[in-house]
């Protein structure tokens, strides 16, 4: 079974409005992480690989982003992914879900797999080279919840969002050395879930809580460091701002819905003041 996980690199340093108010600046000590839901997606893929090793299961990770994204791809391989794919872009600022999805889908169509190795073909493949594609339900920074469903549509495969459970064992139709169909549970609001069976290939967007992502292992990191990442430059050099149908005009702080009175002074002062406020309101005795 061939699995692909879409991972996005996000900044974990402090984020502020930039001078022009058109976008944000990230703290001087730039530090990065894999977006939280994508770590869940990758963990789920690795669990599937461990469970279905006999089906020659492999897990690849793909990330679209600047040079630094390679670090997150390596981390993903450290967690247990076999191959890394990096679509290198020079974008700064906001990239809409539709543009990212187009780039991911275009790259997927260029990939051919044989066994555990991947190759990039000159001409686009018409078939989806993966049995299962996993993404996070949304990215932690842009929070669009778009890229997964859009990639699925570009590839013409079914998509199920907000998956909280993949059933490995029941009713699996293992034929011809591949899994034909899987059973998943997706989450709705207020504790409601929906059971769905879907034929592969399919795309699932993964909701947190499905698993606890592991830390990269030393042996995997060493292996990852020896392995080359498959890279593809967005050669047309279309910067997102000219190519993206979505235009960012500015960034602003949301309006205050309540007074948000700020307490001043030392920690002790603030604690005393809060105590008094709550006492006055009869919330504390």
């Amino acid at each position: 079974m061939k699995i692909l996980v879409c991972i996005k690199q996000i900044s974990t340093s402090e984020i502020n409005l930039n001078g022009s108010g058109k976008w944000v600046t990230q703290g001087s000590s730039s530090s990065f992480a894999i977006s939280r839901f994508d770590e869940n997606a990758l963990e789920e893929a690795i669990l599937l690989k461990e469970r279905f090793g006999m089906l020659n299961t492999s897990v690849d990770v793909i990330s679209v982003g600047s040079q630094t994204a390679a670090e997150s791809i390596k981390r993903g391989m450290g967690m247990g992914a076999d191959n890394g794919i990096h679509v290198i872009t020079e974008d700064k600022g906001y990239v809409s879900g539709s543009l990212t999805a187009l780039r991911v889908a275009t790259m997927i169509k260029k990939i051919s797999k044989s066994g555990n190795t991947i190759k990039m073909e000159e001409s686009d493949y018409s078939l989806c080279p993966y049995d299962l594609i996993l993404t996070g339900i949304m990215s932690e920074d842009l929070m669009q919840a778009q890229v997964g469903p859009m990639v699925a549509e570009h590839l013409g495969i079914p998509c199920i969002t907000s998956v909280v459970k993949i059933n490995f064992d029941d009713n699996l139709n293992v034929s011809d050395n591949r899994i034909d169909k899987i059973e998943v549970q997706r989450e709705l609001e207020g504790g409601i879930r929906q059971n769905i069976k879907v034929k592969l290939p399919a795309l699932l967007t993964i909701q947190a809580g499905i698993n606890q992502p592991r830390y990269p292992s030393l042996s995997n990191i060493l292996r990852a460091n020896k392995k080359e990442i498959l890279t593809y430059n967005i050669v047309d050099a279309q910067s997102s701002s000219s190519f993206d149908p979505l235009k960012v005009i500015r960034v602003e702080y949301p309006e205050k819905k309540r007074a948000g009175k700020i307490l001043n002074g030392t920690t002790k002062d603030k604690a005393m003041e809060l105590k008094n406020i709550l006492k006055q309101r009869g919330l504390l005795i």
Partner: protein
Amino acid sequence: MNNKTILVIAEYLDGKLNPITDELIACAIEIKKIFDLKAKDISEVNVLYEIKVIHFKGINSLESEKYKSFLFPIIREINPSFILMGHTSQGIDIASGLAVRIGCNCITNINKIIYSQPENIDGSEGSKSNILFSRSVFKGKFNTIVGVENLETIILLTIQSGSFYIKDCCKEYNNIISNEECYLSNVDDSIISLIEYGDIVYSCTTNSKLNEAKVIVACGRGIGDKENIEYIKKMAACFTGSAVAGSRPLIDMGWLPYEQQVGITGAIVSPELYLAVGISGSSQHIAGMKDSKFIVSVNKDPNAAIFNFSDISIVEDCLSFIEEFIYSKQA
């Protein structure tokens, strides 16, 4: 006269109309107002925007792939300027994929519609349209204001719940809102045969102690460690009739049981006092606690979104603050 349509897709669950539908209508009215204003601006009133709410019958709205295939030809036929859906689990499952199929713009999780004078928009990079959309990014800390280049293409929006309200002034719009029922005809789409939609399971009840609590002390990832829940419990013990709650990541990590999750996929609460400790204030959390009578938040980031929803804001390291609070209470 040239008519354009703002299409609202009414949302149903179990045959019941979801309240998000009212918000979608309120949002549609705001869009219409902007175009009415624009028409006035350029002193031509030759485009009339009408609001059409469609209610789909004979189809389970949770069968998303079917729903997409069903919607596709209808949208083609109506050719609306805007399509509005909720940014709900249903909307998320349907909207973005459908937008690719239609080949239209799609902007998700909108919390505000903004009218902008064209001259305020940077010509080279900016949008040429007068209508801009605000959406929440970076854990709710900022809103990005976005526009599209070309208003001739359909724009599909998903609306963040809790952002639009039907006000009294909307009544005057009643006559331009039409409701329409659509019945499922046979749609032929190969993707549909690949999915079998099963039962709905009411997995776990959100019927916890939280609903009865007068005071809720809720903690988020900012508390750092599972062990620090002890601090939160001690804080809660300062109040009578209190309960401990958490943001979703804490429940996902197994630090607290699901019954104690507050938010759109957990419990919706409105206690006398809600104390949010180390919680950023993402819309999904806010949806669960914004109606609390009094809200106090502790966060080390002075710009954390939670402060926009708080009566009292305390910028501090949460553990030091709790220690100090407990100490001051005993003193």
